[in-house]
């Protein structure tokens, strides 16, 4: 069962990833990204990370992809991009570098010295006393061992919110009001002239 699920959803995740990179339309890329994210959520699920699977679907597929689609629709950049390159040999070098990264990471994945030893003092995923279910185990680790990084993420999120508001704010630009005003004025005059 686990074998079938791994190969099926691993293949789906790779298909979605290739779709993100290869599709010309950014909206299609975002939809392929949803396929990859949900497939990775299933891979989390068969690895006893139930909370992370739910969070993956809710946060990534629910919030982040919607944010991507919102910006695509807001900016109207869903036209096909021009594929001529200004830098010569940029694309072959990029593919060669990608193959190099794949070789390096596969070399690392094949060695066991990168994994280290099993921890003796952590909260185990399964078994090991009355630690409760997956959510309770994650909460126990998050609010004891990782309490200080947890507080720091609050600072990071505040900085991100303030920064994005400051970046997206129109500062010192002329508002695009007149177009809307003329259209409204024309509509009202037409509406008055028709009857």
């Amino acid at each position, binding site marked *: 069962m686990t*074998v079938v699920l791994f190969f099926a959803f691993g293949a789906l995740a790779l298909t979605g990833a290739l779709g993100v990179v290869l599709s010309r339309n950014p909206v299609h890329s975002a939809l392929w990204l949803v396929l990859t994210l949900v497939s990775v959520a299933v*891979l989390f699920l068969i690895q006893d990370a139930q909370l*992370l699977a739910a969070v993956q679907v809710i946060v990534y597929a629910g919030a982040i992809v919607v944010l991507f689609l919102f910006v695509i629709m*807001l900016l109207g950049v869903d036209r096909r991009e021009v594929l001529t390159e200004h830098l010569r040999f940029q694309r072959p070098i*990029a593919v060669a570098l990608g193959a190099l990264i794949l070789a390096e990471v596969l070399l690392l994945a094949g060695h066991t010295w990168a994994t280290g030893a*099993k921890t003796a003092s952590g909260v185990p995923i399964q078994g090991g006393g009355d630690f409760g279910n997956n959510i309770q185990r994650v909460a126990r*680790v998050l609010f004891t061992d990782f309490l200080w990084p947890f507080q720091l993420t609050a600072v990071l999120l505040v900085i991100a919110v303030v920064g994005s*508001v400051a970046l997206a704010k129109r500062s010192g630009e002329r508002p695009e009001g007149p177009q809307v005003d003329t259209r409204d004025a024309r509509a009202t005059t037409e509406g008055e002239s028709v009857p």
Partner: protein
Amino acid sequence: MIAALEITPSYYLILAAALFTIGAVGVLVRRNVIVMFMSVELMLNAVNLTFVAFAKALNDTAGQVLVFFTLVVAAAEVAVGLAIIVAIFRRRRGATADDLRVLEG
């Protein structure tokens, strides 16, 4: 035959390596900035998959907790990055990497 095959953590690591590579090539090849951001999300997801695989292999929940911090960083990165893209698009009427060749104000 299939039942005899066992999924070891190396399978997940190899899958995560493939996902990471596709994301990295996407960042290098594509020129639409939004698609480049999606490729960065792919790379972050590959790292998350690695964390969960090691958490399962080492039987330690700390690996799953680290995925939460990656999620927070990804959310903050997407919020700030998309705000930057909106600001660039307002100024340059385009959102490809070629519009960013000149980094003056």
